[in-house]
């Protein structure tokens, strides 16, 4: 046909093609022969496969029938869809959300172990579970960590210990099991993983290596360099993160032992109470060397518990001076005065911080904000300690003989009388007697006349006996005085039963009488009065704050600011009255002393009102009794104040005369209880500046106060001694808080 001689033009994709039905074109057959002018498009298949039998059959079938017939289908290996246990395997239902599902790309990691237990593991788990409780996930996590930590070389037992941090038996059994399993394992890991490429290119042809990195995609040299650099950085970051993890791991461990220690301490307390070791003599005998050990070598750890220990010790010595009558005493050794000024500079600061610090503190506790509340747990407490001490050293007037801190040691600064007294209710009265007071030993119940107590370096309590004309009469004072004193000293010992309440009540009134009677006798150096007064004013606010926060914490409403202010006014008024009195009596010493007293009682008033307010708000039945009792138990109130505002300026101020100057930071440390906390705090929070540390510092005492208030609710009968009970119960919340703390610490570690 001539028609075929011309060559058809190429098909133009932009040219319209008219559409015909076959029936419209009877002469179409003529065209067929030139069809090949249209280039044959490739099928896109591999050539050798294109000719495959089944495909060809299917294609031809399609062309013939325009539709696939069943038999012309390309056969494929079979698939079954009748897994009978499906419903048991995939439990529960998933409701289709109304909205399209949107997934957060980062929300997928939930830190669950990749390792999945097999039936062999289950056998082991069941075996282990006979002795302990081990959840499958725990087990898987252990295996997972072991797996991931070991590359070609298996993790050693030592490494495993660090890695897993489980108790030895469990660790050993799982580790041994893992090693065995790993050795029998055919794959490179117990967690089946896709083979990774090796950088040397040896795996380029390994069919099982998949998902190689497309390094070359980052084309230019420059880019690649960048990539390498950032890769390096990432590696570094990773290393550092894993280090962080192990550090946190260790912190967790440490916190655990801290908690344990705390529990033990509490136990010791309880036991002491049970054997009636109220004076701490027994404990002292047993623990003196031990306590010192714990205090010294552990600058980081156990701040609380170690403080507890010292505190116990101190207290046991302190116990004597409960009923202190003013005695004429010799003036203080001079060196004390030298330092006192410095010290006083510091105190007010502390106090103001305390004021602001308290509410914060309590809030933070509520929030369980670890950062803030970390004062027991953070490992860096040793850090701020040493720098803080430097300025003191610089100013140290002792020159060559100055006490120099050794790095890494936690020193308990000398505790002066006053620092003991504020914290221990029974010593509250000490404040009256300032430096020298009637001293009694609690275990051999015996009054050892007037003495001056101080805490030497290392926390030893030294009694400097002072002879006085009352020495003789003191002998017969013992029996009467000791009872109440025992009562009032107990607060931090567990359980003071109600049977004692009468005694103590009586003795308290008696005490008051004593105080009244003896007031004029008390000697007090003049120059410190101003300070003490300043203290006085500054000292009280913390109490208020503490009380306020306590209330706001434990109950809504409560002790308000107005209340506090009126209270303060009262205080001032009382001060004035007392001062007038003193002036009239022409006793200079007494004045200062009085001050102290008033302060304490004022504080007690305050604390009492705080306490009273609490139950009030909760409509507790005890209110009445509290109200009834408190007013007439002056000494008790003191006790309270001391407890509630352990480091209150008042207390400190009262001691002003006899203050031994100590490095500013050391001061809080030296203080037995509340200050113990305080120092811990300041030492702990490294993230804060020194100031903020201070700011937060008082909170433990606030906590104390809070616990006093709250524990009051729980005391069925509130009598004067209930304060003691309160004090005892104090430990409960504290422990709880600590528990909470350690728990949160753990949580933090986990994340």
């Amino acid at each position, binding site marked *: 046909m001539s028609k075929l001689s011309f060559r058809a033009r190429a098909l133009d*994709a932009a*040219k319209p*093609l*008219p*559409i015909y*039905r076959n029936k419209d*074109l009877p002469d*179409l057959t003529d*065209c067929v022969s*030139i069809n090949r002018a*249209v*280039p*044959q498009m*490739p099928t*896109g*298949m*591999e050539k*050798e496969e294109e*000719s*495959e*039998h*089944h*495909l060809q059959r*299917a294609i031809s079938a399609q062309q013939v029938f*325009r*539709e*696939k017939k069943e038999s012309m289908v*390309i*056969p*494929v*290996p079979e*698939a*079954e*869809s009748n*897994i009978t246990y*499906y419903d048991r*395997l*995939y439990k529960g*239902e*998933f409701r289709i959300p109304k909205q*399209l599902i*949107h997934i957060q*790309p980062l929300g997928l990691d939930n830190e669950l172990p990749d390792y*999945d*237990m*097999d039936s062999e593991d289950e056998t082991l788990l069941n075996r282990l579970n006979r002795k302990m409780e081990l959840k499958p996930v725990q087990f898987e996590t252990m295996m997972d960590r072991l797996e991931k930590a070991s590359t070609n070389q298996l993790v050693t037992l030592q490494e495993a210990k660090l890695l897993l941090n489980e108790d030895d038996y469990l660790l050993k059994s799982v580790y041994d099991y893992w090693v065995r399993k790993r050795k029998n*394992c055919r*794959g490179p890991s117990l967690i*089946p993983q896709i*083979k990774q490429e090796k950088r040397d290119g040896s795996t*380029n*042809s390994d*069919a099982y290596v*998949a*998902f*190689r*990195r*497309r390094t*070359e995609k980052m*084309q230019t040299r420059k880019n690649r360099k960048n990539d390498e650099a950032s890769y390096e950085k990432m590696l570094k970051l990773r290393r550092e993160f894993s280090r962080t993890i192990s550090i946190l791991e260790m912190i967790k461990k440490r916190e655990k032992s801290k908690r344990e220690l705390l529990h033990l301490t509490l136990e010791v307390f309880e036991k002491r109470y049970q054997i009636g070791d109220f004076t701490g003599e027994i404990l002292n005998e047993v623990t003196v060397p031990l306590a010192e050990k714990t205090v010294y070598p552990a600058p980081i750890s156990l701040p609380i518990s170690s403080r507890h220990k010292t505190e116990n010790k101190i207290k046991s010595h302190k116990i004597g001076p409960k009923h202190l009558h003013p005695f004429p005493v010799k003036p203080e050794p001079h060196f004390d005065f030298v330092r006192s000024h410095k010290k006083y500079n510091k105190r007010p600061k502390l106090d103001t911080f305390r004021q602001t610090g308290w509410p914060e503190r309590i809030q933070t506790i509520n929030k369980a904000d670890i950062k803030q509340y970390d004062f027991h747990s953070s490992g860096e407490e040793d850090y701020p300690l040493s720098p803080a001490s430097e300025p003191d050293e610089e100013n140290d007037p002792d020159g060559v003989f100055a006490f120099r801190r050794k790095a890494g040691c936690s020193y308990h600064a000398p505790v002066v009388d006053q620092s003991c007294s504020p914290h221990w209710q029974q010593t509250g009265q000490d404040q009256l007697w300032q430096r020298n007071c009637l001293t009694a030993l609690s275990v051999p119940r015996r009054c050892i006349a007037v003495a001056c107590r101080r805490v030497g370096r290392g926390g030893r309590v030294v009694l400097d006996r002072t002879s006085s004309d009352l020495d003789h009469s003191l002998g017969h004072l013992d029996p009467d005085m000791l009872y109440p004193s025992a009562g009032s000293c107990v607060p931090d010992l567990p359980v003071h039963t109600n049977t004692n309440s009468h005694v103590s009540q009586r003795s308290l009134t008696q005490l008051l009488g004593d105080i009244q009677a003896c007031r004029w006798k008390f000697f007090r150096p003049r120059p410190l009065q101003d300070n003490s007064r300043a203290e006085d004013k500054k000292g009280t606010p913390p109490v208020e704050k503490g009380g306020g926060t306590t209330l706001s914490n434990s109950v809504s409403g409560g002790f308000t600011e107005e209340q506090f202010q009126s209270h303060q006014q009262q205080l001032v008024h009382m001060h004035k009255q007392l001062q007038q009195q003193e002036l009239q009596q022409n006793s200079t010493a007494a004045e200062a002393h009085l001050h102290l007293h008033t302060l304490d009682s004022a504080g007690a008033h305050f604390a009492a009102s705080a306490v009273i307010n609490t139950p009030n708000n909760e409509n507790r039945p005890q209110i009445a009794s509290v109200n009834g009792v408190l007013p007439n138990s002056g000494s008790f109130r003191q006790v309270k104040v001391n407890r509630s505002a352990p480091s209150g300026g008042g207390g400190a101020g009262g001691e002003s005369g006899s203050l031994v100057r100590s490095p500013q930071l050391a001061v809080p440390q030296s203080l037995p209880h509340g200050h113990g906390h305080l120092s811990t705090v300041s030492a702990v929070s490294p993230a804060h500046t020194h100031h903020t540390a201070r700011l937060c510092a008082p909170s433990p005492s606030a906590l104390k106060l809070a616990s006093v208030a709250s524990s009051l609710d729980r005391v069925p009968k509130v009598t004067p001694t209930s304060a003691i009970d309160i004090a005892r119960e104090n430990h409960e919340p504290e422990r709880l808080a600590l528990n909470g703390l350690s728990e949160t610490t753990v949580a933090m570690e986990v994340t």
Partner: protein
Amino acid sequence: MADHSVEITEGCRLPVLRRNQENEDEWPLAEILSVKDISGRKLYYVHYVDFNKRLDEWVTPDRLDIKKLQFPKKEAKTPMKNGLSGSRPSSPERDVKRKAESVSLATQVTAATPVPSLPASTEASQAALYTAIRDASFNIKSREEHEPLTSLTTNGTTSIQRHLIPPQPGRKRKNCGGTDEMVKVFQNNSPRCSTVYLLPGEDSQDSSDGIPSAPRMTGSLVSDRSHDDIVTRMKNIGCIELGRHRLKPWYFSPYPQELTSLPIIYLCEFCLKYLKSLKCLQRHLTKCNLRHPPGNEIYRKGTISFFEIDGRKNKAYSQNLCLLAKCFLDHKTLYYDTDPFLFYVMTEYDPKGFHIVGYFSKEKESTEDYNVACILTLPPYQRRGYGKLLIEFSYELSKVEGKTGTPEKPLSDLGLLSYRSYWSQTILEILMDLKSENGERPQITINEISEITSIKKEDVISTLQYLNLINYYKGQYILTLSEDIVEGHECAMQKRHLRIDPKCLHFTPKDWSKRGKW
């Protein structure tokens, strides 16, 4: 039946008993790929010549027809690991076949070039023309003048592309690139010719020294057949349990080697994690709370949903998906990571969750207008319209992007059938819906079809051709619709219930080129 006196080795060919779809016994010729001994009993891994690899299987000696055993030719002994000559043990038949293939490749190369200077190859002497073309193209290539050839599509592009990649540092690399090319040539030609096309500075030693080339990094997971060694030629996994289904893999998949000896690999239905035992799966399910693919749902109509998963952001899932998919996709390799891909997973919802039905992957940026890299309907869901649904969805995405697209080559047999079917239906739908305006015959350009459907122009043409619609009539090209085509189409469309509803698609294409990396 088997005669044990004769050693049946790898490379031998002989008829093997096989039951066909009609349940009749057949004795197709098969090649022994591997022999294994299980407690004294031999098993032979056979590939049925001219059947798809997915039908390869282990057979017992009694299914072998020893009498018709053909020993392997001397040159091509056992398949070699390096994937060169051994990968496809040749035989006389094979060689003939190769020639034929080469021819068709040549045709294809020519045809794909819309330059009239390479016309009607079929009219020339096939062998001669073939050689000429190969020579020409490779000479050009070795001189690194790509321009004239860049218009080549599909297979041709693959080799050229490699050259477009900037030379990699280090001699080894360079050699690899070259080797790669050589391998390609080798494969497509008779071995005799291969040396001719070696690039200067390279010798055959390079190709066998154990540093095979890496597949090109651009494009997608196209498998380089040179890696088609004996390991990847054989299925390595017996069975995969996925949700309610037990799947018999069709091809090799690089699951961890220690799992391949297990009778069953258990997959978590939702995160696709592979586990060695049911117990492990049980444990895993207590920790895995996924009930849908871990991506954003971008389409939902009825029970059908599509989830988009970023291969970079969700590596674990993407890799698991690829591993599973590789079991059913022959021509893909998992050589490189999944970063440059997006995965669109189609699911069917029931109260247990969103069950994976199939998926396709797509390059974030394709230099070759690919809108699909790999596409798969899982075997239990095959032949129920889901494949077409996946394809339809991929073109819907392209429509939103305002681009035309084509699936990455090579296509598998099933892929070709599915795509052809989709293209045919889509194009016929348009052609039949065309109404004549003002009394004139309705007409349409190929470009218009391409624009409406997002099907790449070449695919439109090939479909029209395949359907035999293009005719040259009275000096112009026309499209003719025959009765049987119209009927067949209407019939097929009636059966096509599953359709993508563009209104249910919530998809905003991202401009990946503006991002530093994918």
